[in-house]
Each structure stands twice: as structure tokens, then as C-alpha cells.
């Protein structure tokens, strides 16, 4: 149907290459085009040295290109990327496998665009594509002047809610939110000049403007809530309020009691048997009684390894403790049914199908409401398996049910549901609970204190009711009336509290964004000696102004503690590579990053870690929140060996073998590193240390070689 040229977008570099190789038997070009492609290619790689022409990536790409198939992603060598772009814009490549980066920027429209996946990994979740990203990538389809229309093909591998799909296809582009922030370098440059006001800069920023724009909307919301609160009238407000306060305190005390009971050391042995009867609350919504299926131990801490000396031990000690998750069967209703019920037929089908779904989550399901249990909507109720943490357990019962091993089939779950109902029927006064003192053996002294407080509160509340029963028209006398008034009061309180929160938020929006952060940052600079107590910039600060490629605070500390004095140029360059190497190897997270590194590289690295820790402590001392381990782990020594080899004169092929990353990332790291080294050379000239300057200049020369610094084809 002549849909080419086509771009096929994947969300990972590896997928791109896999798909391209899968097509290795296809051929889309004729002889004339093959010659043209070969010509363009040879012209382009003429600027490379002989060794670089034999790099695996360079050699492997040509046969693919000749057949009209191309690959484009961030891991390729920059020169190869440019070749692919040029060939694609000439129309010599019919089918291109690319990642998202191709969708931004360069003018490369195609006739058809294919999406291989609807979910992507954004570092935290495996989430659906957002509408903004969709618009960006699908916008590539259709060349102006050549095509009547562009064609977008979306591959869908899994069940997608129609609402989600609509959101992606018809949604708005991503909103333009300013994330303006001030770095230490910026702050120092401003403090250098007399009478410059960083606050003025922040006040006039777009970020501030956007926040201030939201304020009227927020104030309106707050006002509405306050009006709603004012509409609720409560009789005998004082009495109700005192009763309510006591009730709240009782709830808080009970929660604390339960929290102590929930600690693994007490509760775990009762959760080993499947079928334990549990009362579950997830995110404030009470699901009622359910049955335990299994208890799993998820060890979230890495094994850590036996290395790194002091650094490793500190890291291990700070690692999180073991966490447990429970699999429980609970009654619930799919939230899907809460949405507008359009079609009756669709509804019936959904009801029939929904019993097939055996897994539930708080996102998709909600607890059963009173009306549904007794009314005609009882078909909507199903029993599903939830995975929850220990914190969701409200109460543990002494009762243990029989639960089959496999809970996937609907009959098994229905049987368990029947059993749960049966138990509740047999104990109309409340299911028997496990006693914390006798069964769980809670020995915490705090527990006794809390228990005493709880009993005290209950007696006071009863007394309160008693004392006011005598007054004739008291609301508290009648129990039903009392509960009603308390509910109203609760609602009023919630409105008022919500309004207060919104007003506080609006107020915070009006103050300058980052004002507090800036004060804290100034304090950090004073503490580290970049400026003196009066705010006049010092030698250290002037040096930090020269560095903007990497963490300026750390680089300046490294320079002034003389770490570079004992190292050769090659070692210095290898050490600085940890500051510019950003990528994380997902598979190696539990391995020791220092494994395999020689001594002359590990020792400077450990010194760098110590300096980083001292910087981190200075920052934390000024009340800026910074996670020490996260900060230190940012400096990844994965490229140290490769960079050392490169600076010693090794060929790019050999250097690439020493690291796991793609070639493109290696090149990016080396280029950024060269810039950093140049900046440090300038800075050391300013402080008058000629040795460091000479060392850095030599390092820069060692790096600038061959394919890493070959010029762009466009220039």
C-alpha cells in the first residue's frame, strides 16, 4: 500500500536494534539507491581514522542501510546518527527504527508512524504514554506537500480502558510548566557583582508568574468550602465538639496501639497460616473482613558486597529494613462501575466478565458500600486478591478459615467469600480478636501507656453523655441523634480544615518561589567558605564560578583539598569521569561498582566519596534535605577504567569493551569530561596553581582524539 517512508518508534534502544535485525532478510532499495547510499556513507566516514572505521557499530550499520533500513537512538556514534538522518531526509531509508529522541527537533517527517508499545518506563512507573508524547511522535506522520495524509499505526498489546485511550488520543499537549531553579554557580555569579539582587531575578521568573496565576483560583475554592461549612448547622455545638474531640483522640490512640501490634516481631507468626481472618483498611477506606492467602518477605536491600571499606559499611547500615507484603482476599466493587453507565448491554457483559478478574488493587476497586450489599447490585461485588503492606491490617482475628491453594478460579474465590460471610453471621457481636497482651505477647511499655489512655478516654466520654442526659433538650441523650450530629460536625470540620489548607497553599504561592531555598543555599556557601560572613565572594567562590558542567561545590572541594596533586593526568581524568557519567546500569545495582577496578583508581575514588560526604554534611547542616547515600551514589565509577584506557591512548574498540554502555553514551561522557577538564584548567589558572593547570591541559589533550571529537557532518 506504499506506506513508506515509515518510522517505527520503540521506547528502548535495545528494542530498536532487535526489530531492525529481525528484518535482515528484507530489501527495500534498488541498485541506484544502493550506490547512492554507499557513496554517502564512504564520504561521511572519511573523516574517521582507519581504526575507527572498523568499529563494530560502523561496520554493522552499512549492510542495513544499503537495504533501506535504519536505526537511530542515543547509543549510536554521533557520526552514524548524522548519516542516518541525512539518508532519511533524502528518502533513501524506507524504514527507520528510532527512539523518542527522533521525535523532537530535527525536521524529518515520514508518511507513516508506528508505535510498538503503549506503555513506557519513565524511571518510576511503567505508565501509559501521555497525550503530549503521543502528539509529538505521531506528528511526524505526513510530509507537507508530498502526502495527502499521514498514517499512524498503534500496536496495543494489552487491555486498555476506553477512557484511557481517549485521553491519549484526544488529550491536550503537555502543559508548559517552568521548573526554574537557581544553582550554586548562578548564585555565586550574582553575588560577585555589587548590588545584584537574586530575589529580583526569582520574582520576575516565569515559574513565579505561573504560581501567582493559580492563587485566585485557590482562594475561590477555599471560600466555597467555607461557605459549605457555614451552611451546616449543629445543635448544642459545644457539647458535640467536646465529644468529638474525645472521640478523635480515642481513634488516634487506637491507631497507635494497632501500629505497635502490627510490628513484624509480634504479628508475623500469626500471619504464616493462610486463611487468617483480617480486617483491612487501605488508604483510609475500610474493606472490612477478608482472608489471608499468603505472606511474602520482600527484601528491598541490596546485598551490598564486601567492598568500599568505610563507604560500603556506611551504605549497608543505612539500607532499608526488610518489608513484608500480604496477599488477602477482599470483597470489593470495581471502580469501573462507578463511572457513567451508558449501555445496558455493555454493563451486563462487564458484570459477567468481571468475575474472571482475580487480582484487585485499590486503584481499580473500592470497598463495598452498605446499600450494595443488601440491594440488587450485589452482582457487582466480587472477591479479589489484593497485595497490601502490613500497615493496612486494622484488626487480627483468632479465626482461621480454609483457603484453597489456588485462588485464581472464580469458584474458589466465591467459596471463600461465602465462608467470610458465614463467620460474620456466627459472631453477631463481633468476631473474636487476638489479644495483644496474651496472644501477640506485646511487651512494649508504651503499649501499656496507650492502653491506659484509651480506657481513660472511653470512661470520660461515657461520663460526658451521662452528665448531659439530664438536661432536657440535650442532643447527646438520644443515641441516633448523637451520631447524626457528630457526623455533621465531622463534615463541617473537614470543610474548614480543607479551606485552611488551601489558603495556606495560596499564601505560599505568593511568596517567592525558592526564597527559602536560596537563603539556605547562601548559608551553604558561607559554610563552605565560598563567601565570607558579609557575603563578599572569596577565592573559593571565584573558582566555583568557573565550573558549570558538573557539581561545582564538589569540584572546588576536590581542587582545594589537593586530591589532584598526587595523581597523574590520566588518573585525574579518570576520577573526574565519575562526575560526568550519568547512566545507571539497571542490572548491576546489587553488584559492587568498584569490583574489578585497580588500586590506583579505587583509592582516589574513595577519597572523592569522602569529600562528597563532607559536602553533603555541610548542605544538610544548613537544613537542606539531601539524602547522603543517594548523593554519593550519584558519582558512578563505571567509566573510570574505560576513560583511563582512552587517555592512555587505547583504541576506541578496546575502550568500548571495558564498559557496558552504548557507544553514544561513552562519547557523550568523554565530551562532557573534556569540557569539565578545560574549565578546571581555567580555574586553576585563576588561583595561581600552575601545576594543576598544566596537568589539566595535558588531560584535555589526551582526551581529544579520533572519533570522540570528530566534527559534525552538518558543519
Amino acid at each position: 500500500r506504499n506506506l513508506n517512508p515509515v518510522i517505527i518508534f520503540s521506547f528502548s534502544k535495545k528494542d530498536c536494534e532487535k526489530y531492525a535485525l529481525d528484518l535482515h532478510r528484507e530489501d527495500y532499495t534498488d541498485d541506484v539507491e544502493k550506490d547512492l547510499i554507499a557513496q554517502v556513507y564512504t564520504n561521511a566516514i572519511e573523516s574517521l581514522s582507519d581504526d575507527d572505521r572498523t568499529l563494530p557499530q560502523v561496520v554493522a550499520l552499512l549492510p542495513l542501510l544499503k537495504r533501506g533500513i535504519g536505526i537511530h537512538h542515543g547509543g549510536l556514534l554521533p557520526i552514524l546518527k548524522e548519516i542516518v538522518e541525512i539518508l532519511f531526509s533524502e528518502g533513501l531509508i524506507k524504514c527507520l527504527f528510532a527512539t523518542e529522541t527522533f521525535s523532537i527537533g530535527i525536521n524529518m517527517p515520514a508518511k507513516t508512524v508506528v508505535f510498538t508499545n503503549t506503555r513506557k518506563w519513565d524511571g518510576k512507573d511503567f505508565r501509559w504514554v501521555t497525550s503530549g508524547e503521543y502528539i509529538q511522535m505521531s506528528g511526524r506522520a505526513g510530509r507537507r506537500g508530498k502526502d495527502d495524509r499521514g498514517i499512524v499505526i498503534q500496536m496495543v498489546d494489552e487491555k486498555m480502558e476506553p477512557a484511557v485511550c481517549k485521553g491519549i488520543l484526544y488529550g491536550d499537549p503537555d502543559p508548559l510548566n517552568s521548573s526554574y531553579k537557581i544553582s550554586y554557580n548562578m548564585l555565586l555569579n550574582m553575588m560577585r557583582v555589587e548590588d545584584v539582587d537574586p530575589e529580583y531575578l526569582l520574582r520576575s521568573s516565569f515559574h513565579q508568574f505561573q504560581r501567582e496565576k493559580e492563587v485566585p483560583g485557590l482562594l475561590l475554592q477555599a471560600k466555597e468550602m467555607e461557605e459549605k461549612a457555614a451552611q451546616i448547622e449543629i445543635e448544642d455545638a459545644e457539647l458535640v465538639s467536646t465529644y468529638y474531640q474525645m472521640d478523635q483522640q480515642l481513634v488516634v490512640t487506637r491507631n497507635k496501639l494497632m501500629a505497635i501490634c502490627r510490628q513484624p516481631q509480634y504479628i508475623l507468626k500469626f500471619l504464616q497460616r493462610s486463611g487468617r481472618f483480617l480486617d483491612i483498611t487501605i488508604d483510609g477506606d475500610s474493606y472490612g473482613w477478608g482472608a489471608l492467602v499468603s505472606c511474602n518477605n520482600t527484601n528491598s536491600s541490596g546485598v551490598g558486597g564486601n567492598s568500599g571499606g568505610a563507604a560500603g559499611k556506611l551504605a549497608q547500615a543505612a539500607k532499608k529494613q526488610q518489608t513484608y507484603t500480604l496477599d488477602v482476599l477482599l470483597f470489593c466493587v470495581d471502580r469501573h462501575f462507578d463511572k457513567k453507565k451508558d449501555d445496558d448491554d455493555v454493563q451486563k457483559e462487564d458484570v459477567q466478565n468481571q468475575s474472571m478478574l482475580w487480582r484487585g488493587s485499590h486503584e481499580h476497586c473500592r470497598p463495598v458500600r452498605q446499600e450494595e450489599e443488601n440491594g440488587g447490585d450485589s452482582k457487582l461485588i466480587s472477591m479479589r486478591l489484593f497485595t497490601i503492606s502490613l500497615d493496612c491490617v486494622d484488626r487480627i482475628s483468632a479465626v482461621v478459615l480454609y483457603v484453597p491453594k489456588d485462588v485464581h478460579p472464580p469458584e474458589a474465590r466465591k467459596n471463600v467469600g461465602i465462608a467470610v460471610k458465614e463467620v460474620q453471621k456466627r459472631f453477631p457481636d463481633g468476631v473474636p480478636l487476638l489479644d495483644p497482651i496474651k496472644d501477640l505477647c506485646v511487651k512494649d511499655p508504651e503499649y501499656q501507656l496507650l492502653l491506659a489512655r484509651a480506657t481513660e478516654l472511653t470512661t470520660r466520654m461515657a461520663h460526658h453523655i451521662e452528665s448531659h442526659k439530664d438536661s432536657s433538650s440535650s442532643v447527646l441523650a438520644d443515641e441516633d441523634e448523637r451520631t447524626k450530629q457528630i457526623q455533621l460536625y465531622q463534615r463541617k470540620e473537614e470543610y474548614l480544615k480543607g479551606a485552611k489548607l488551601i489558603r495556606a497553599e495560596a499564601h505560599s504561592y505568593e511568596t517567592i518561589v525558592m526564597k527559602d531555598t536560596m537563603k539556605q543555599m547562601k548559608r551553604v556557601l558561607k559554610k563552605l567558605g565560598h563567601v565570607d560572613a558579609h557575603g563578599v565572594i572569596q577565592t573559593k567562590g571565584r573558582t566555583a564560578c568557573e565550573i558549570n558542567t558538573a557539581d561545582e561545590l564538589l569540584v572546588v572541594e576536590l581542587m582545594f583539598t589537593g586530591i589532584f596533586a598526587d595523581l597523574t593526568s590520566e588518573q585525574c581524568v579518570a576520577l573526574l569521569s565519575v562526575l560526568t557519567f550519568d547512566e545507571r546500569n539497571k542490572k548491576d545495582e546489587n553488584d559492587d561498582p568498584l569490583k574489578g577496578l585497580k588500586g590506583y583508581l579505587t583509592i582516589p575514588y574513595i577519597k572523592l566519596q569522602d569529600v562528597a560526604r563532607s559536602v553533603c554534611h555541610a548542605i544538610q547542616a544548613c537544613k537542606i534535605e539531601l539524602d547522603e547515600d543517594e548523593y554519593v551514589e550519584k558519582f558512578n565509577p563505571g567509566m573510570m577504567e574505560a576513560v583511563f584506557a582512552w587517555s592512555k591512548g587505547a583504541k576506541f574498540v578496546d575502550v568500548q569493551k571495558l564498559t557496558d554502555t552504548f557507544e553514544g553514551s561513552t562519547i557523550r561522557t568523554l565530551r562532557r569530561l573534556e569540557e569539565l577538564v578545560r574549565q578546571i584548567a581555567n580555574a586553576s589558572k585563576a588561583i595561581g596553581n600552575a601545576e594543576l593547570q598544566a596537568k589539566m591541559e595535558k588531560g584535555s589533550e589526551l582526551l581529544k582524539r579520533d572519533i570522540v571529537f570528530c566534527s559534525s557532518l552538518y558543519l
Partner: protein
Amino acid sequence: MTTHLVVPGQVIAEGDGFLRGHGTYVEILENSERLVASVAGRVERVNKLVSVIPVASSLYRGHVGDLIVGRILEVQTNRWKVQISDSHRSAQLPLSGVHLPGGVQRVRTQQDSREMRQLFHEGDLVSAEVHNVQSDGTLALHTRSLRYGKLENGCLIIVPPALVAKRKNHFCEIGNISLLLGTNGYIWIQRALPNLEDAQLAEHKEKLKKEHTETPVLPDEREKIARIRNSIECLAKVHLMVTPERIEQVFKISQSLRTEEILFPDNIIKLTRSILR
């Protein structure tokens, strides 16, 4: 806090574990290294970096962001040469770095090049800020703020640059006289300008400045200016750091003398005795 003063040739530190900074050199002996001073001055230690800041020289090195006062030496195509110290190395003030009249922002045309002399001509005093320091040490200046520009109707006094420390605010006021402490040692004294902050528009500010220039200075203002000038010279003669607080102190104590008597040697010692203590 004691200051560690050294003379050229004096050993500052022995062994290794220090980084060499300005004003020092490393002497390598048989089995150890020594850090020796090459100029006379104060020792500054920042972590491991040891450098000597010269106190006696009249050499002004210049850092980005410093406020200086200079005299126009030459008018060249598209830039002015500005004298900022006794040494024959002058600073450069490019045409693109000055404020055009009216506050207008545009690319400088050939017309502007030809009319440079109308903005500043030879012999004028200007206040400017260091924009950057080139690789050979030449300073590039700019006057792109209404606080900087031509200085008129006042008095200039030159002190050694080492006596003027970099502060947060180089504009200061004593009574109704304003001072401008240039980091290169050139200090400008004039009658206080009306508050420029109230005037919002550039034209308004320039009008105020022009009024100030054209109004002649009254005799008692002249006397005050002269007295302050002599106070500063007192401080310079005994090699004390020139700060607004000290100038004010000397100014107050000197009220008992006549202005011209301030510079007699006995009086100098008397006036500065309280500060030295």
C-alpha cells in the same frame, strides 16, 4: 586574628601536602620541599591552597565584578582605553559596554562610533565594573547600569589598591557627601546625589544626574569634601585599610583642626592613633 606577614624569600611551610598559589614558589631540596614566598604580603590559606597576597605593591590585579574608577586615556574605534593604575597596562571599555543616553537598547551603529567622544572624551573620569579578565590580564569594563558612568563635580584621591578591600557596597555616604571606593585605589568624593531609586525611568535619572553636574558646589560642601579627602590620605599614609567607618571616624576627630592642618605629620599620628589601638 593574627595575620601572617611574610617577605620575599621567607619559608612559609615545609614538606608536602600544600598546593601552591599566587605569590609563592616551591624550592626543592635534597629530600624535602619548601614553600617560599616570592612577594611581601599576607599569607592566605584556603584548605590546602597557600598563597601570598601582596600588601605593598601598587599593582591592581582585577577580578570580575570589581567596581573601579578610571580616567579615559584614548578614544579608539569602538572602544576607550582607561587608565586604572600607575602601571602602563590600561583597561578597555568597549562601546557595546556603555549605557547609551536615554537608556535605549540597540546595536551600536557607525554613527555611534563616530560620536564616541560625546559620551566620554580624553581626561574624563568614569566609574565602571569589571566585566571579564582576558588571558593576558587586561580588564574589560562595562558601565551598563545607571549607577556607573561619567563622574563630574567632585574630587579624586588615589591610594594604594591593597588598602581598598572588596566589600558588598562600594557606594557610601557620610552626611551629605557620597563616596565611591574603587577597588583599584581611585576614590571619588562628591556631593550626594538625590535618591536615584525613586526615579523609575532612565530619562528621569539622567536628568537628576545632569542637574547635579550643573549646580555649582557651595563653599561649605567644598570644605567638607576637602576634609574627607584629607582624612582618606591620613589613613593611606599610615597604611591602614580604607573603609567608610574609619573615614568617618577620622573625619569626626579632625573637626577640631583646620582642613589644611590635617596633613601635618603630628596630626596624622594623632588622628589615627585611636584606630590603631
